């Protein structure tokens, strides 16, 4: 019949119209700023810097190796290396960044910085909205804005953070064991040296003892970056 399809269509739209008032599951709209969709665990947006403990300055894992700065495709990372050193996550003295800036208006969320970081220091955040009236300096995040605690990292990516923590703990143990064996070896060497000096003449003691201690120190400092690169 003429107009049958039109009437069918009108009935369908009327059903939608009244149905949306009666059945809430018809409305799929999320009232965005107030309601948000749950994010999946692999969500990523912009990078942030992880720190251990409570003090973002002391616990920052970044050792300012600048690999991420070099790898970043849109070149949105800017790092300035410190002159002095402080102990890192594993406990070895390392450089730290005096300036660490990421321009999130340039960042393309590729995660390459996370993949190249040998120190588990830079990770991807899940926050995606940074509303601001100033699109230049307000979107250039400095070290303090980027630093977020390891607990926060556990909150946003629990599985990944647990794996990272386990790896870091294993490394810390290995470093401790290595330090212990090195200390033991140095002690044995020293003991052997003293034994030698005690059996031999007294005049040779300073010459034999002096090279033994700096040599052991140089050995441990060379082992650290090599151990880091292996991860």
């Amino acid at each position, binding site marked *: 019949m*003429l107009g049958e399809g039109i009437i069918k269509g009108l009935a369908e*739209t009327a059903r939608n119209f009244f149905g949306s008032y009666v059945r809430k599951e018809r409305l799929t*709209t999320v009232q965005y700023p107030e309601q948000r969709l749950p994010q999946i665990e692999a969500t990523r947006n912009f990078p942030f810097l992880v720190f251990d403990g409570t003090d973002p300055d002391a616990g920052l894992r970044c050792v300012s190796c600048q690999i991420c700065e070099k790898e970043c495709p849109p070149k949105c990372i800017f790092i300035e290396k410190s002159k002095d050193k402080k102990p890192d996550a594993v406990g070895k003295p390392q450089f730290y960044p005096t300036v660490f800036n990421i321009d999130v208006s340039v960042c393309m969320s590729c995660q390459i910085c996370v993949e190249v970081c040998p120190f588990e220091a830079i990770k991807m955040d899940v926050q995606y909205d940074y509303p601001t009236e100033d699109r230049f300096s307000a979107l250039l995040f400095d070290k303090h804005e980027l630093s977020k605690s390891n607990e926060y990292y556990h909150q946003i990516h629990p599985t990944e953070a647990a794996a990272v923590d386990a790896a870091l703990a294993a490394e810390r143990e290995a470093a401790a064991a290595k330090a212990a064996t090195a200390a033991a070896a140095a002690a044995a060497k020293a003991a052997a040296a003293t034994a030698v000096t005690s059996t031999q003449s007294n005049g040779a003691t300073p010459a034999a003892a002096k090279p033994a201690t700096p040599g052991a120190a140089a050995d441990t400092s060379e082992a650290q970056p090599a151990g880091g690169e292996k991860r």
Partner: protein
Amino acid sequence: MIQTLDQVFVIAKHWLMGYVPSPLQPLTSAVLSIIPILIAFPLLFAITTWLERKGLGRIQNRLGPNRAGFNGLMQPIADAIKSLTKEDVVPLTADHIVHFLAPLLLVVAAFLAYSVLPVGRNMVLANLNSGVLFFFAVGSVVELAVFMAGWSSRSKYSLLGAMRAIAQMISYEVPLVLASVVVIMQAGSLSTVEIVEQQAQYTHGLPHWYIFTPWGILGFILFMIAATAESNRSPFDLPEGESEIIAGYYIEYSGFKFALFFLGEYLGMFATSGIAITLFLGGWSAPLAALTVVPSWIWFFAKLLALIFAFIWIRGTLPRLRMDQLMNFAWEFILPMALINMFVAGVWRFMAPGIVRWLVCAALVLAPCVVLAALLKRKKKLQLRTYSFAE
């Protein structure tokens, strides 16, 4: 009391006129009649934009605007402020004067049409004895405004949109007028007030609306289809054609001029709905004799809102027609049906009242409708489309 409430605006006007010296009275009378029209219908436009966005949203299982004010009720005000503060861009090569005049002419023509609409008992700006004719004459000025807009913009999209609009409006102007001729034949008058008064009579508590006759139903349906096309609304919104020619003839308009086009389009829609109410739905008269206690102007606006809702419903349901479908529909179906309807109205006029007259006229309306539809369906060949150049 009921009488007073019904005539409250008329009484208020007369009371105000009492304070005016007699030489100024004709001018004051005109101004006092015009101002309510200039307030009520743009206000209705504001409400309609909100209603339309809400209704379309619900039809599509969305929420619609709900941020500005309670349930988004302040949305029209926000839109008005936005369009007022926007930059008014005029193309460099455009004809500046015509480009400026087009939206004004559209709005003025739309407002002029309200002068013959009886919105209540004794509530008409000008009781012309050729009111219906005046309405259609003023309505066709809209076409001029549309072509002025399309031509003066110097853009191929505007020109295409304007040409589509003109072709469509002229095609549908004919059935629009022919569909309303049946009412004039029955009422024997071109005056809108006279037509409404003839319908505002009751037998057994039922009104004498023309929609309750076979030719009235068909006339109303044809009139509403033509009115939809005339006011460029979906499914006949080819001149606007968001997906192909962006916004048609007003693509080069921005800011408040664009808002004026929008206003003019909606005012035109209200005006054609208003004349449809006047011609077929009994104008300001109540649907039952018992309901005449409700003021007449409330009935007019209730019917207008019902028609607006129907327009929104149709817009939310039907997809846009193709140009050839649009033209074929106008010339091959609506126009012959309007002519047949005139014949049926003539038969009705000269037959004795009774159930026989009703049945004969219903058969005379239904049979051509079915036959014409079947013929048109047979003409339509469905086949696999072959592309000569695209392979």
